[in-house]
């Protein structure tokens, strides 16, 4: 048993954190999320080409650094600390994870493109009626001579306005909620028949509603077996779930640090409010949630390679704990800041917004504790 990071992992964290300290202060971030494009594309290029960050979790055969889920967690935590909106999660963790899992020619073709920063992938999996159920799909992919014809509506697809490619879940068979008949496709984002409605999200990112209207996609867009894609989709969503737990850990740490700093400066009744025991105990409780979020992220990350049921139980335990912790830390950070905490002016409120969105991302605390119970508490 060993819970220390390797030298390479420490190097990844240090390199990224130095880069973000130079390029990603809060004011700069606010400027580019307010721009038309909603991001600064130079940062993505720098992450890929100057820092080699996008290759951290890929094998050396594909031109990466040979890491995996732990490297993803390190990078996501650092992005969390600066409220990074870069599409690392959908591109590297999710699409990259799917490509690593299927391997072969598709992996050889796309992974080097991801590492080079040439590709941004958005993950189009949720549908308006589906909530967190990955199999509840109305989007269909009907086979024809050339490949498939895609029809349907995907909701709240983060990073879609920036994406060169879409990773799409669709039914190639079965009924709306069947586990069988689900397939995964990696397609060009600009194919004819794809209609997007773009919008900003409350946590500073960009997303789209995507409508597929008789979109012709080639047969080789299929990742994994036709109709048997759900286990793969569940696996990559679990990987994504612990990755957002890692991001949440970074976000929660900043919420906590910001609160400590503020209470030491802000005076009431003639003394810094940090001297009040009731606030000290609240900040200790926040500290304990941050530490436990970190513990659960590590636990979930290390269990990604186990059997599907063990992996799901571990990931759900992690997400449930992190979601509860994120709510607690976020709400108490705002409360402790008082009125200034609910303004757009201070960073703290923006961290709270991201923490709140993470609570529900890939399943709420209730969704995950349900899944945990089904797997571990059979009567």
């Amino acid at each position: 048993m060993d819970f220390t990071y390797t030298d390479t992992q420490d190097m990844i964290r240090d390199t990224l954190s130095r880069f973000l300290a130079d390029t990603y202060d809060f004011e700069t971030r606010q400027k580019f999320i307010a721009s038309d494009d909603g991001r600064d594309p130079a940062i993505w290029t720098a992450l890929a080409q100057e820092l080699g960050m996008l290759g951290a979790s890929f094998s050396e055969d594909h031109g990466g650094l040979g890491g995996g889920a732990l490297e993803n967690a390190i990078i996501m935590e650092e992005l969390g600390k600066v409220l990074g909106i870069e599409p690392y999660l959908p591109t590297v963790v999710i699409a990259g994870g799917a490509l690593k899992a299927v391997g072969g020619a598709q992996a050889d073709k796309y992974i080097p493109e991801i590492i080079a920063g040439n590709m941004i992938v958005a993950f189009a999996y949720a549908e308006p009626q589906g909530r967190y159920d990955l199999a509840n799909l109305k989007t269909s992919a009907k086979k024809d001579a050339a490949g498939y014809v895609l029809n349907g509506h995907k909701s709240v697809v983060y990073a879609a306005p920036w994406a060169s490619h879409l990773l799409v879940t669709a039914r190639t068979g079965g009924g709306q909620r069947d586990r069988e008949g689900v397939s995964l496709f990696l397609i060009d984002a600009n194919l004819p028949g794809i209609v997007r409605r773009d919008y900003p999200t409350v946590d500073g990112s960009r997303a789209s509603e995507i409508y597929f209207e008789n979109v012709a996609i080639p047969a080789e867009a299929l990742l994994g077996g036709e109709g048997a894609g759900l286990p793969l989709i569940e696996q990559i969503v679990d990987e994504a779930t612990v990755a957002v737990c890692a991001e949440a850990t970074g976000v929660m740490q900043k919420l906590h640090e910001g609160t400590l700093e503020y209470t030491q400066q802000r005076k009431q009744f003639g003394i810094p409010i940090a001297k009040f025991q009731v606030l000290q105990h609240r900040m200790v409780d926040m500290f304990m949630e941050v530490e436990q979020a970190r513990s659960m992220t590590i636990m979930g990350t290390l269990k990604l390679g186990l059997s599907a049921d063990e992996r799901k139980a571990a990931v759900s335990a992690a997400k449930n704990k992190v979601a509860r912790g994120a709510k607690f830390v976020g709400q108490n950070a705002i409360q402790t800041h008082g009125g200034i905490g609910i303004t757009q002016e201070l960073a703290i409120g923006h961290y709270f917004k991201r923490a709140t969105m993470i609570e529900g991302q890939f399943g709420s605390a209730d969704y995950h504790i349900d899944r945990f119970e089904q797997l571990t508490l059979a009567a």
Partner: protein
Amino acid sequence: MDMEFSPEDLAFQQEVRTFIAENYPADLRGKQDEGDELSKEDFLSWHRILYKKGWVAPAWPVEYGGTGWTPTQRFIFSEETARADCIRLMPFGLAMVGPVIYTFGTPEQKARFLPRILSGEDWWCQGYSEPGAGSDLASLRTVAVPDGSDYIVNGQKTWTTMAQHADWGFFLVRTDKDAKQQEGISFLLIDMKSPGITVRPIITLGGEHEVNEVFLEDVRVPQAQRVYEENKGWTCAKFLLAHERTGIAGVAASKRGVEKVKEIARTEVDGDKPLLQNAFFKRKIAELEIDLTALEFTELRSLAGPNAGKGPGPESSLLKIKGSEIQQRLTELTLEAVGHYGAPYFRGFGDGDNEHPIGPDYAHRAAPTYFNVRKTTIYGGSNEIQRNIIAKMVLGL
């Protein structure tokens, strides 16, 4: 970073399992399953078995009789003993005063006391708390006045666990009334058979005699039994409390406790289904289990992370707070699970009592244990004090 046990660790795990299966006393297993009160002899029988094997003090340095195990092996050992429902050894000698003596004691003190702690010949108790002081430990008023080569000690201690059995006690006493609160305290080892010591039982809510009041009237204690410098006892006290806190996270025991609650909830019927299918009850168990996992991995990070081997720091307060809260939630769920049969009250159905308790075997200790375990957020420095420690030492407030 990995959670894997090495082949050596797996072999060690098997060795521990086999040892417990072959050596843990059968009558003790029975008592433990019934949740009966354990006698001094019960504790000592398991203590002596582990001593004979050389496993009684895994955390001690090898030169003083420790095992030389890695943190992982120690983790495995505590997991396995909890899994097998082995009783937990009394911490006062092994986990508390022992480390103080080998860290701060004189060569004579080490030679005299450590072997007898290991063998179980001496049963120790802790003289820290005082009436009116509680978690404000430094406000203690028991005084030790030099008299030749001795001290004359006067005062009163309270909440002294298992003092009724103790051969020796380690006491915090005031040796300088004029110094600042924490600077005039000394750490004394006192023979509990010394003239002038009276031990009076305190019966707690569950009906148990676990804690006592200890009165000291003109008790003569050789100065050679003072550990570390005069007036520097606070250093020993802080060291000891940090050690105590790590122990009382109790992760392995709570993991076993969760399994037991689940077993009860599978047996108990709610409507026409097992209680474990009641959505609300199930949710409470699941949340507890997840919180316990978070505590476990936080403890593992401190055992096998970058700060491993540096000894327990103020972060150990986190383990104490969360560990004690989880222990309480466990007993709460158990009491809730047994329903009506939480109510019947029993006294003294230990040795020699043949009457079978009312209700299922797992029910009759549910309420007393629930009452008893309210102590965990109070002892060892209340959880409020632990929060003060984190606020000051970790957060710098």
